[in-house]
């Protein structure tokens, strides 16, 4: 029963976001601010994760491909597809659920508890539109970009690890990258990125916006939002794979 109440409240929150902005300029400013916060703010962790993710993939794939019949360039092929299909969209978005999600939930939760949301409401501002919509749109715009950057860096990390450890040459890796490349995989990765971006921004926004109580409740809402976002990302990952692959 509680699940349905929460789900209904979540849908009403999404519906409530769509109203005419009081001042388009202010909303644009807030949107750009969120793009910078979410995009630039998460870039560092995305770069680090992606490079190591690609590097570890190369080493582990090479470790498992022991047959002399399989050409070394296959390693690059496997790394490419794993990074594009799964690691970059899913792993990066799970990390972003922690980084971006907890930030959104705690920011809105703090605004709710310190009556800043009430202050905006009394001014006549639709707080769902002003506070949640820019975060949601910024995530949908910026997170797929981060996923693309992550995929490029992941493959580059894999190449770097492969050549530095002497597993395969740069030329062999590049050859493998071009073999049997399906552009559809990029579309699939982006479809996942857009879906996950929506999940990891709207779920924390919901938990943060409706928080009641004090600091303890903000912490709980933040943790809950990350857990629920991660579970939903994994569920959506399975669903999209089953539907689109």
């Amino acid at each position, binding site marked *: 029963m509680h699940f349905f109440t929460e789900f209904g409240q979540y849908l009403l929150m999404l519906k409530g976001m769509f109203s005419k902005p009081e001042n388009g300029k202010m909303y644009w400013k807030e949107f750009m601010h969120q793009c910078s916060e979410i995009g630039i703010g998460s870039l560092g962790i995305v770069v680090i994760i992606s490079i190591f993710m690609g590097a570890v993939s190369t080493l582990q794939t090479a470790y498992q491909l022991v047959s002399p019949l399989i050409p070394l360039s296959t390693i690059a092929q496997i790394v490419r597809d794993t990074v594009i299909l799964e690691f970059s969209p899913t792993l990066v978005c799970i990390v972003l659920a922690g980084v971006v999600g907890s930030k959104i939930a705690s920011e809105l939760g703090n605004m709710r508890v*310190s*009556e800043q949301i009430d*202050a905006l*409401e009394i*001014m*006549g*501002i639709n707080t769902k539109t002003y506070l949640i919509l820019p975060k949601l749109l910024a995530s949908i715009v910026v997170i797929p970009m981060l996923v693309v950057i992550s995929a490029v860096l992941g493959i580059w990390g894999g190449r770097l690890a492969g050549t530095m450890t002497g597993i395969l040459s740069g030329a062999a890796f590049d050859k493998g990258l071009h073999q049997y490349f399906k552009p559809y995989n990029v579309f699939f990765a982006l479809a996942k990125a857009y879906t996950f971006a929506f999940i990891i921004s709207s779920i924390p926004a919901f938990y943060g916006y409706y928080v009641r109580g004090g600091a303890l409740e903000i912490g709980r809402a933040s943790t809950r939002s990350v857990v629920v976002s991660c579970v939903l990302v994994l569920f959506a990952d399975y669903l999209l794979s089953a539907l689109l692959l």
Partner: protein
Amino acid sequence: MIEVKNIKKGFGEKIVINDVSAVFETGKCNLIIGTSGSGKTVLMKCLVGLFEPDSGEIFYNGQSFSEMTEEHRKELRQRIGMLFQGSALFDSMTVEQNVMFPLDMFTKDTYAVKLKRVNEVLDRVNLKDANKKFPAEISGGMKKRVGIARAIVLNPKYLFCDEPNSGLDPQTSLLIDKLIKEITTEYNITTVVNTHDMNSVMEIGDNIIYMYQGLKEWEGSNKEIIFSKNKLLNEFIFASEFLQDAKDMRMLEMKGKIDNNRNMDELLK
């Protein structure tokens, strides 16, 4: 003028406000007093539309708030200023940006015009040289003054103050009270103050409503409160022996039994 007619509000089984009616007049400081949990904050939140009453009606200058369209309510809210208990300043903005925010959102003025207005209201609340400071860098009293500046920057018709003196020292509390009183008269606005500060009651209470367990227990002015025979009100207002003595002195003063300008040094000799 704001008129409240038979307002009821409850949360689940618990009735927080029970059939309260009142009139808050323009140009006066209307105070809602009562112990914690008496329903005064809920009543104020109903007045500003943050809570929807279960029954009863609220009229802003004769217009029913419950019958207003969402668009109409938005327009009305732009004529409402509110000072929150914790000031509710936006943490990520400077004092100047906080006060300028309603202007940014609802006017198309140039930056120079907006800045002029911001400086005017900051000057009005005696806050100079704090423009570039963040809320975390200023004192509680300064935060309240920034809150008042933000509330009056759009020239509101209605000002709501939720416990404006909470957490402030007596001297700063008096300054805030004085400021609220001056602004009410100067701008001729309807001010509603939610408080349990006895100094505020005696200093600025043109019209006082005493709430007790969700009911309006007493109504009158700060002059009448001294002579009130309401037991619950007296227990609340003049809780300590010191305040009881102060009340007795004020009663004697008002009845002309002792001189208002008495020389205490002479009397104590």
